[in-house]
């Protein structure tokens, strides 16, 4: 039987994996749980952690990301860029300010945090602090 990677299967597997962690309490104990904007997904990538948020339509100049200790703050302003004098037929997009702080249950190396913003998706790479990494204990 031929084995091939179907991109649709990849997507389905990803969606199922994301569903499984809908009720995870990984961030549950932080100062701001779920319920505020922007919604976040948290991933582990090797030793490091990645926070991803969808904020389409936010100009990168209006985005403010701060890291202190193991608390990450994502703030910004989403403004419509519509001309004046328009007739609005349908309005589903939401605009306004957002400010969300969350504490991750790991020690992060704040100096090495990387942020990227592409196609309306903000991704923060939070490298785990060297001293927080698990060490392998050799059996004597």
């Amino acid at each position: 039987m031929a084995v091939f990677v179907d991109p649709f299967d990849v997507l389905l597997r990803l969606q199922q994996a994301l569903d499984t962690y809908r009720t995870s309490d990984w961030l549950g104990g932080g100062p701001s749980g779920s319920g505020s904007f922007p919604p976040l997904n948290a991933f582990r990538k090797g030793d490091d952690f990645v926070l991803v948020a969808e904020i389409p339509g936010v100009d990168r100049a209006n985005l403010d990301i701060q890291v202190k200790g193991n608390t990450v703050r994502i703030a910004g302003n989403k403004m419509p860029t519509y001309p004046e004098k328009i007739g609005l037929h349908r309005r589903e997009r939401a605009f306004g300010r957002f400010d969300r702080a969350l504490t991750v249950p790991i020690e992060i190396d704040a100096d090495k945090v990387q942020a990227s913003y592409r196609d309306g998706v903000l991704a923060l790479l939070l490298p785990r602090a060297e001293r927080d990494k698990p060490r392998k204990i050799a059996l004597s």
Partner: protein
Amino acid sequence: MSDAQQLALREKQEVSGKDEKTVPGRFYVPATDIYETDDALTVVMEIPGVDRQHVNVSLENSTLRIEARIDPANYEGMEPLYTEYGVGNYARSFELSNKVDRDRISAEVADGVLTLTLPKVKETQPRSIPIG
């Protein structure tokens, strides 16, 4: 719109109903604004995570169909720990009235937002009638 307005969380809406797919995977309905100016209709759609190459806009008869695909490869090697939203492709279609000039529809993508400009045909644009 007030500048001080706080953005509230909104759950993404999944595509349902007659628009079913034969491929596995979930499709979401992109949040859309539609506004009209004197010379055009503009459709503004949120498709976060979609590269411009993976946006497909087609016009068949009078149905304007938009399909946008995310690239699951971006999530390779990532193991979810905690999730608040689902990711997936986007699909939506609109029925165009005959006041849209179908040959001049244009599209652009910026920061995860697709903007479609549908110019009106000349006859339907407002004119001021001079009084003779």
